[in-house]
């Protein structure tokens, strides 16, 4: 059993939760993910690691309630436990000195998994520009944390309530126009946002990494449910990824596959609501 050490609702439906998993916390590297199961009847859900603390043994997760499983997770209180917690999974991000200027673009809760990568990039001596994008300023997350590990922060809100008005692509445009030499862009967030970033960097010839979170069961290469088309190849996000060259990822296919269980998610969420677990 894995204990909940901390929980906070950052904005409606978005949670910040620390889970006690010392072995995982000791090993986690930037860019990796975990798979958890809330209870015996639960499904296995993959979540990207937002931070790890080797002293307290905590792994930080930022998640949005989208189905029954994330709803049940959000209902766990500090001191309660979840059934299973497996990790760290996937290939760590490629981080080394001398990579130049790295732009870390996080959309929505995608800012959270950007944080450990930004930190690692920064510690390796690279220049890191953090781009934090959200619909509106109230749901921006991880601003302070990112500020500590980035040389510069650019904020974009769809409604213009803070920073640049518009999508994260505006930040790439702005950085390009002011003559910033971007050596790599890493984008994490909703597929549609990652796709727009990839389309914005393609004509500029900037190497762009995206971190994918497709439907997954085991997270160790066994089920093949997380297969994605990358260039001419079929890759398994769990063992080959989760990061891939964004310019090669087939986003249409990725988005189509993520809709596979949408009907069931609704059935299931309603089902759980009926027994009074939810919001």
């Amino acid at each position, binding site marked *: 059993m894995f204990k909940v050490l901390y929980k906070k609702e950052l904005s409606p439906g978005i949670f910040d939760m620390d889970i006690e998993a010392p072995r995982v916390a000791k090993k986690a590297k930037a860019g990796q993910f975990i798979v958890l199961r809330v209870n015996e009847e639960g499904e296995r859900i993959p979540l990207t690691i937002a931070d790890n603390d080797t002293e307290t043994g905590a792994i930080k997760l930022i998640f949005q309630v989208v189905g029954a499983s994330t709803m049940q997770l959000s209902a766990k209180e500090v001191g309660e436990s979840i059934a299973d917690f497996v*990790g760290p*999974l996937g290939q760590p991000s490629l981080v080394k000195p001398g990579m130049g200027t790295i732009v870390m673009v996080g959309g929505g809760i995608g800012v959270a998994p950007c944080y450990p990568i930004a930190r690692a990039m920064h510690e390796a001596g690279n220049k890191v520009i953090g781009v934090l994008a959200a619909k509106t300023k109230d749901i921006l997350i991880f601003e302070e944390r990112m500020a500590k590990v980035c040389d510069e922060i650019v904020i974009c809100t769809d409604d213009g309530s803070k920073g640049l008005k518009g999508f994260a692509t505006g930040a790439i445009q702005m950085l390009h126009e002011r003559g910033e030499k971007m050596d790599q862009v890493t984008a994490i967030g909703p597929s549609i946002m990652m796709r727009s970033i990839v389309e914005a960097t393609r004509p500029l010839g900037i190497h762009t990494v995206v971190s994918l979170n497709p439907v997954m069961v085991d997270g160790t290469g066994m089920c093949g449910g997380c297969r994605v088309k990358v260039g001419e190849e079929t890759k398994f996000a769990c063992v080959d990824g989760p990061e891939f060259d964004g310019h090669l990822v087939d986003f249409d*296919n990725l988005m189509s596959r993520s809709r596979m269980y949408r009907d069931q998610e609704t059935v299931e969420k309603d089902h759980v609501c009926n027994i009074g677990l939810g919001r």
Partner: protein
Amino acid sequence: MALQLKKHEMPVQDPKVRAHNFDEVALGYDEETAVAEAERCLHCKVPQCRKGCPVSIDIPAFIAEIKERRFEEALKIIKESNGLPAICGRVCPQENQCEKLCVLAHKGESVGIGRLERFVADRALAQQEDVQPIEYAPDAQKVAVIGAGPSGLSCAGDLAKKGYKATIFEALHKAGGVLSYGIPEFRLPKDKVVAKEIENIEKLGVKIELDSVVGRLYTVDELMEEEGFDAVFLGTGAGLPHFQGIPGEDLNGVYSANEFLTRCNLMKAFKFPEYATPIKVGRNVAVVGGGNVAMDAARTALRLGAEHVYIVYRRSEAELPARKEEVEHAKEEGIDFRLLTNPTEVLGDDKGWVRGLKCLRMELGEPDASGRRRPVPIEGSEFELEMDTVIIAIGTGPNPIIAHTTPGLETTKRGNIVADEETCATSKPGVFAGGDIVTGAATVILAMGAGRKAAAAIDKYLQEKKAR
């Protein structure tokens, strides 16, 4: 008494009924039938059956005990060679092993060795078999076993009996490997059989650490250098599903058999929404492939409510790699076999969902490298089947995580770990490997046999290590 040429029938659930439930299909012998079947054994001077058993169970000896109704004795004899008899009695391909070599098989049907093994084991499980824990020496050496599947379980069980402290590291949240995620409930009951057999191994003092992916949480080197293990056994299995590489395999509604079966068996999607993992079947389901896994997937799809389930296989009935019994059960339940048929494309609708399967008819040509006649496409024979779900069951490859994270571990071009056939020793000192990760996808009993061989070799290695 005249020799009875046929095996005693094993009662089975009615096909029409069982096609809609997940309860076990074959119901097992009762005591009288078991004794009567044991009476058929001729007790040959030079028993052939034993030579066909990958773990060399003393078959005539245990059958003799059944004749005398000394069932505990019979179990003891089986357990000397096989730690998981209730499982092997169900899923071993006996018709290609012990029963194939039985003298009676020349004239009629062999003794029902598998059914007798199952009877003895089930009887003990039902009566809460008394397993004595091992008393370990204070300086007992430690062995890490990677993977709680058939090879890992039998290796750990044997190591415990030899006085070593074995810890199994399992990636999933449940032990059993393919016994838990792959083989369906209706062929191998999970709570009644698999969980109890695993409990018996734990009672010996074997520790099982779930949710532990070796290669990520600890590397093999860390297990030996930092975690204090004196040797490591790798039994990680053939966990990486192959796809055919035809267009449309990325459509929604296409599963690997591994994913389909894992959702249903391990995650209990057949109880959705009580269990949270969803699964989709639709009305028409095609399973591509002809092995036991394909049969399992097809019969599972039927039980999940599919109306029409096809097996699509490119060779003919004679080449079906599945056990004959499984093929017969599948046919009785109404699975539609489309043999000499090869899928060339999964067809999708405008929303990215499967709508059909394009196939070519095949004929058999000259024998290929495997000795089986090569299927050759018949020109212009293309046709389409309407389909909601397509399940690819054409085999699996080795999981890459250990190989990628263990320097000095030699692998084949395909990614299988290279290990000595007799000792299971790998290129890395102190590291042994066996089962599907070495051989490629094979049977439960072969993996168990490898686990046993490895345990014997690890014993020898550790004794020498201690003496040094």
